[in-house]
């Protein structure tokens, strides 16, 4: 009960500016408008009010934020022609505006809310005396990062461009890939203070209408003060918020987004971050890299199978090592067992403590490597090699096999193409080690079964998380364990792309000899 009351209170709290500005219509007296705006932008150093006489007689004001608009354009195409003396001829302000302004994107603003919105996205607003509406000039321009290769998901073969922090650039990159007008992009604003632009992109006729509605509904439900990264949105629209597994993919790659849109999925682009969310996804799409589709199918299929193997390794190998050396020594071939025992002889800790020690150190090392300034990166690798390496072994702290196990696990978790999934597996490794140390193989089985049961209960926007394995979709296995050659990829995934099942014409297998 108390909790509900508190929530209600929070609901009523709106930011003060919004309350004043709501739907207040602009007045015809310029000074009134100016006064309100000035009081709102009080103590805002970056807001510029430029007063001038239009055509030598009408009083006018330009309001803009420094650094968000193209100043040169403002000077050359707005201020210069407007301030020109009309030479005695009496002309209405409208006609001056119509003839002299060389700007393609103009918008009339009638309320204060509109006014502020435009100013804050970088469109200077021109207010005139004796007019009840102002003009927003679409010359927003600010410093942005140029398009670079995405650092978190690099490929050997594939496009080298990645999304940037600017929404407009990102949507344009998508549009360049999918030129059909069926690619729809709906926009909305979330965040009381940030009012961040969010775009839902999908392909009409491919994506399920109910899915789009569901995404919209979940986004509209959000009432939060700020959205600084798509991670905020992700956590607010997930099906199972308490799961360690990601239920939306985030990617920096326009080609990944495009290929997912073409399979009937929905992308959510957030202004201010290069990471785009894709929904709904399954567990197995997290094991796929876009490069799988660009390399030869046989190679990609082998790599995919290897990735699955290493996913298991990254999850259970340390646990298995602890379990086997503690409880099931008979499983190890005798000669190997002897060398294992010899290596472990001088180690003072039980296998469990040893494993925990090494794994935690490794995680710390990795975290340090990610956060560290690049200049001292080399130092970390030197120190790391000492901690997880020969020095640790010769100091008698850990055994050499344990070092190998930790190293293989580390490599295995680096193999995961999606960082968020790698994180989940890293996290789940520790309870598994604990279970292995208490109940041996049985404990590992308990842990693995619990994880699998959990994965079976998960859904991503209604889509079962483990499709196409459970529930089984026989035809889609061609793009799960393997990557079938493109001439065999005739159908889209059933659960997301059933509305337009055929990807291409049938029978496109190249066969030059038979051609006339």
């Amino acid at each position, binding site marked *: 009960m108390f909790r509900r009351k508190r929530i209600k209170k929070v609901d009523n709290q709106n930011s003060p500016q919004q309350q004043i500005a709501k739907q207040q219509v602009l007045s015809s007296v310029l000074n009134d408008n100016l006064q309100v705006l000035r009081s709102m932008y009080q103590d805002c150093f970056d807001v510029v009010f430029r007063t001038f006489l239009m055509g030598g007689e009408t009083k006018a004001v330009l309001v803009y934020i420094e650094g968000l608009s193209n100043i040169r354009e403002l000077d050359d195409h707005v201020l210069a022609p407007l301030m020109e003396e009309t030479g005695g001829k009496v002309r209405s302000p409208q006609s001056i505006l119509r003839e002299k302004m060389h700007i393609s994107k103009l918008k009339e603003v009638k309320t204060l809310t509109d006014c502020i919105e435009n100013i804050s996205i970088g469109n200077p607003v021109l207010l005139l005396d004796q007019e009840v509406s102002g003009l927003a000039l679409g010359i927003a321009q600010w410093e942005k990062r140029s398009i670079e290769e995405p650092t978190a998901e690099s490929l050997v073969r594939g496009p080298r461009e990645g999304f940037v922090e600017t929404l407009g650039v990102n949507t344009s990159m998508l549009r360049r890939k999918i030129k059909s007008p069926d690619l729809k992009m709906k926009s909305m604003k979330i965040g009381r203070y940030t009012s961040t632009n969010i775009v839902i992109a999908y392909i009409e006729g491919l994506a399920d209408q109910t899915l789009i509605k569901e995404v919209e509904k979940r986004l509209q439900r959000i009432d939060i003060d700020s959205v600084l990264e798509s991670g905020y949105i992700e956590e607010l629209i997930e099906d199972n918020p308490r799961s360690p597994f990601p239920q939306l993919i985030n990617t920096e790659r326009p080609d990944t987004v495009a290929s997912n849109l073409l399979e009937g999925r929905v992308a959510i682009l957030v202004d201010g971050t290069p990471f785009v969310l894709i929904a709904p996804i399954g567990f197995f799409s997290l094991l796929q890299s876009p490069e799988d589709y660009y390399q030869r199918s046989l190679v990609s299929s082998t790599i995919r199978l290897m990735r699955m193997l290493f996913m298991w390794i990254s999850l259970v190998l340390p646990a298995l090592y602890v379990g086997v050396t503690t*409880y*099931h020594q*008979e*499983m190890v*071939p*005798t000669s190997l067992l002897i060398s294992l025992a010899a290596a472990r002889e001088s180690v003072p800790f039980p296998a469990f403590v040893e494993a925990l020690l090494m794994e935690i150190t490794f995680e710390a090392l990795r975290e340090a490597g990610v956060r560290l300034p690049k200049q001292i990166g080399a130092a970390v690798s030197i120190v790391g090699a000492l901690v997880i390496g020969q020095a640790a072994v010769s100091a008698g702290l850990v055994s050499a096999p344990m070092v190998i196990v930790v190293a293989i696990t580390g490599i295995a978790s680096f193999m995961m193409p999606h960082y968020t999934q790698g994180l989940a597996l890293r996290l789940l490794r520790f309870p598994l080690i604990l279970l292995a140390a208490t*109940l*041996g*193989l*049985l*404990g*590992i*089985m*308990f842990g693995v*079964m*619990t994880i*699998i*049961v*959990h994965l*079976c*209960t998960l859904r991503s926007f209604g889509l*079962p998380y*483990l499709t196409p*394995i*459970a*529930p*089984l979709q026989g035809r889609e296995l061609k793009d799960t364990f393997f990557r079938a050659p493109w001439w065999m990829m005739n159908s889209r995934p059933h659960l997301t792309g059933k509305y337009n099942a055929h990807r291409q014409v049938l029978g496109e297998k190249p066969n030059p000899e038979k051609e006339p």
Partner: protein
Amino acid sequence: MIEKGKISSFQMALIMYPTIEATALLTVPGITGTYAERDMWISPILGSINGFFTVFILYQLHKLYPKETIIQYSEHIVGRVLGKILGFIYLFFLLHIGSIILREYSTFVSVSFLQTTPPSVIIGGMVLVCAFAVRGGIEVLGRTANLFVPILFLLPIIAAILLLKDFDPKHMLPIMEHGMMPSVMGAAAPQAWFGETFLITMILPFLSDRDKGMKWSLILVVTIMVNFVITNLLAVFLFGGTASGYTFPLFTAIRYITISTFFEHLESVTIAIWITGIFIKISMFYYALVIGTSQWLKLSDYRPIVFPFGFLLTVLGCQWVAPNFEELNHFLVTIYPFYGSLLMTLIPALFLLIAVIRKKKRKKNFVKNM
């Protein structure tokens, strides 16, 4: 309806496969071997008749009452009071068998590798994992079965391939040395296991493709029969008539696998795979128990009673079901074939008979009234 999920009949077959096979792999070859000796591979074929019969009866009952389980339609068939009493007996039966399975599992695990671990931990851990699955509902059960069963299905086959060089097919000769009788006697245990197809009554109402339910149930019985025959043949080829001397012949056989001195002692891996099967088996009985109880008590949701029943199963499985494994095995050999068949096959058959007669009577009355 309490259960909102839907599964396909293929998934039903996948759930039911380990539900019958998991414990059967352990003990049935031994029990059958006691009577049938080297003819023990014939017994599953005879036993499967009961499987076909049970599937037929329950499917017919399902057709008469398509949206209900046996706990619900028993009330319609034999009246409210008697129906409730029978429903209670069924629930008790499920609880009893569920805890027997847990006991078998814990005994096997502690004999194989966790000798000093108290059974309450072994059973409690398993029940906890099962409880998660049961809380997820039939869909989650179906999906986990989808993942685990293919591996489990291959287990006897892979074992057979790896043991190929140790096989001596002469062990199975002479066939039917003492006539049919020993194999018929030996079929008593497998037929009881085949009777466990009874549990499809708990799944049939939740199928998305009802018309295929019969087909997949029959395929299920055939597959299990083939797998039993392979398992028993494996035991015969390796041990001859002495297979009954081992409590767990299949796992003893797997212990023999040695390939180039590296690939040996596979029993731990085998047990790990087998645990996934027993997990589905326990979850299915547990699920049937929980769903049945909530239907019997007409609850609106079954989730609140999952953990209490888990506790009950753990306690029963640890202590009360049988004082020791010999007694349990004795129960499985002598009492269970009759106890199981009575509840899983005969009473449903009686239900079907009454239901059909009633229906005919109603039709006659209907015609008369016209």
